[in-house]
């Protein structure tokens, strides 16, 4: 693989492929670009594409093209859109700082010291920049993860990872500040104006980052709590739903006691408040007339009234008719029988009814009386005869 020999050559190559590179950068998360499509983007100039591939700006795998990792990271870094929080280990930065400082102190002549001083200033600056950038990225990533990640578990894992990263950034800030506080010999020897200015700027920057970091950590904790609350809730709802479907919920939970304690109105049937019209209003106000008129009109719709009318009453129902039916008052007969001394057949045979009664009816009546009131009768074995009819003698008891 060829390498660029100068910045000029690099920028020219990038310039030539600008359209394609910006396209590929936009799609870096989603799809790999096809060779033919890439060629089309470059207006069919295959040489340009070949050049980019030869110099390793673009990596070709089979038919698809991808931005080289180094360039992608470079673009992301420069454009401040990187999603990964890149925390080079705290130790590396601090070691580099200490190495620079110690080298400075050990150097014999000023020229070399100058060189180390520049290096130290540079390291300080890059720590400052890295922290600042990391805190901003962290904040954005946390928000994105919380709002967009649909899976609870992944959300929680990622947030916990961010929490750890926040801790590492905090550690870097802390360690850097310690170096600035503890390397007193160096700072008193190196009475360099540029260094002093850089250090005070870095201090300021780190303080800001530290503040930002506190907010970020609080945010992470808040989000984690919310996730915890939500997942607890989801779990509880599932359990209760299961118990409810199994008809176990009343026995297996304290829901009954809980409901006994709460008397919220929403659990009641919705009330209906019916208000009557004031009679005074109907009598005295002019507007009431309109209302009555309105109601009258609604009530007097013909179809309405017709449907509520009954059929005409038949004239036959209105004429008075009498019908006489005859019936024996058995109880009255019994009372009379009990009050005298002759036997039942004689009593019935000779009783004077309001209507004339033939022999057969009197016979039926005798049988009915004899069978209906056995408790009040005394049956004897004697038999008598009237008009060729044999009958048993029955006395009142």
């Amino acid at each position, binding site marked *: 693989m060829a390498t660029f020999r100068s910045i000029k050559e690099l920028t020219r190559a990038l310039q030539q492929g600008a359209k394609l590179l910006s396209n590929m950068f936009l799609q870096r998360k989603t799809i790999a670009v096809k060779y033919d499509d890439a060629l089309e983007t470059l207006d069919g100039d295959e040489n340009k594409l070949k050049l980019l591939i030869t110099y390793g700006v673009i990596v070709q795998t089979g038919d698809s093209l991808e931005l080289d990792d180094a360039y992608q990271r470079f673009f992301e870094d420069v454009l401040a859109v990187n999603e990964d929080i890149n925390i080079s280990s705290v130790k590396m930065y601090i070691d580099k700082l200490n190495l620079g400082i110690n080298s400075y102190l050990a150097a014999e002549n000023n020229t070399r010291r100058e060189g180390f001083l520049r290096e130290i200033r540079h390291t300080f600056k890059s720590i400052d920049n890295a922290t600042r950038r990391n805190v901003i990225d962290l904040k954005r990533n946390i928000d994105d993860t919380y709002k967009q990640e*649909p899976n*609870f578990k992944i959300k929680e894992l990622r947030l916990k990872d961010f929490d750890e990263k926040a801790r590492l950034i905090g550690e870097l800030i802390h360690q850097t500040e310690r170096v600035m506080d503890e390397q007193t010999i160096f700072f008193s020897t190196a009475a360099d104006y540029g260094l002093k200015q850089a250090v005070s700027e870095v201090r300021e920057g780190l303080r800001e980052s530290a503040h930002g970091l506190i907010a970020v950590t609080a945010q992470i904790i808040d989000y984690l709590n919310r996730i915890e609350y*939500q*997942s*607890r*809730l*989801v779990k*509880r*709802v*599932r*359990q*209760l*739903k*299961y*118990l*409810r479907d199994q008809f*176990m*919920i*009343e026995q*297996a*939970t*304290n*829901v*009954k006691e*809980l*409901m*006994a304690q*709460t*008397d*919220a*109105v*929403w*659990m*009641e*049937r*919705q*009330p209906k408040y019916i208000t009557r019209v004031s009679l005074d209003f109907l009598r005295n106000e002019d507007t009431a007339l309109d209302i009555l008129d309105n109601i009258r009109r609604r009530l007097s719709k013909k179809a309405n009234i017709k449907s509520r009318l009954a059929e005409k009453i038949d004239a036959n129902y209105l004429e008075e008719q009498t019908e006489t039916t005859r019936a024996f008052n058995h109880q009255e007969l019994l009372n009379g029988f009990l009050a005298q001394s002759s036997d039942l057949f004689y009593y019935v045979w000779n009783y004077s009814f309001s209507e004339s009664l033939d022999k057969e009816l009197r016979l039926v009546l005798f049988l009915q009386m004899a069978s209906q009131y056995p408790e009040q009768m005394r049956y004897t074995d004697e038999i008598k005869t009237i008009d060729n009819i044999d009958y048993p003698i029955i006395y009142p008891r």
Partner: protein
Amino acid sequence: MKYTSDIFQRLSRGQFISSNSIDAETRAIYNDIEENQQEYEDYFSQIDFQLSSGDGFYYFSRKEAKVIIENKLQSLFSWIDYLDFLKTYDTAFDAGTQFSLVQMEVKLSTIPGLKEKLAQLFPDKPSNRQKLEALACALESMGFAELVNETDSTYQVTNAFHYIEQIILCINIDEDVKDEIPQ
């Protein structure tokens, strides 16, 4: 104390008033209650209503029960069903969430088990769409959600939704039964 009538109209029907309502009047009512909470409490206690508050919402409760426990349980159980459906639809369904019935209808076929859960709700409504509408209506009439956009039936959940969540979290399950519940 400018809104006694409005407050009574809403709360006595079992509704909730939320601080994050999208309706400016509801927010004004909420703020007025917040400023004169004691006065309102005294006022309504005279007609047997207890003005109660939660995290960003107000509602009415009683000092003495007006309904038997069985009826209360029935009201609560329906909400367990609704919540089970809503949390399956979106595990983060909470105050501030926006949902549209169109979107829900689409999710019915993509989220496993969601359609079956909906089928159990509102047996008197034949179609899924009607069931979803009934659910939105239940949320709305309680003051748990408000219609944001009529054209695609988008609703926003209010703070009062926390009320039902808190009740759910207050229900304790016996430890030995807990082990029997499948995950």
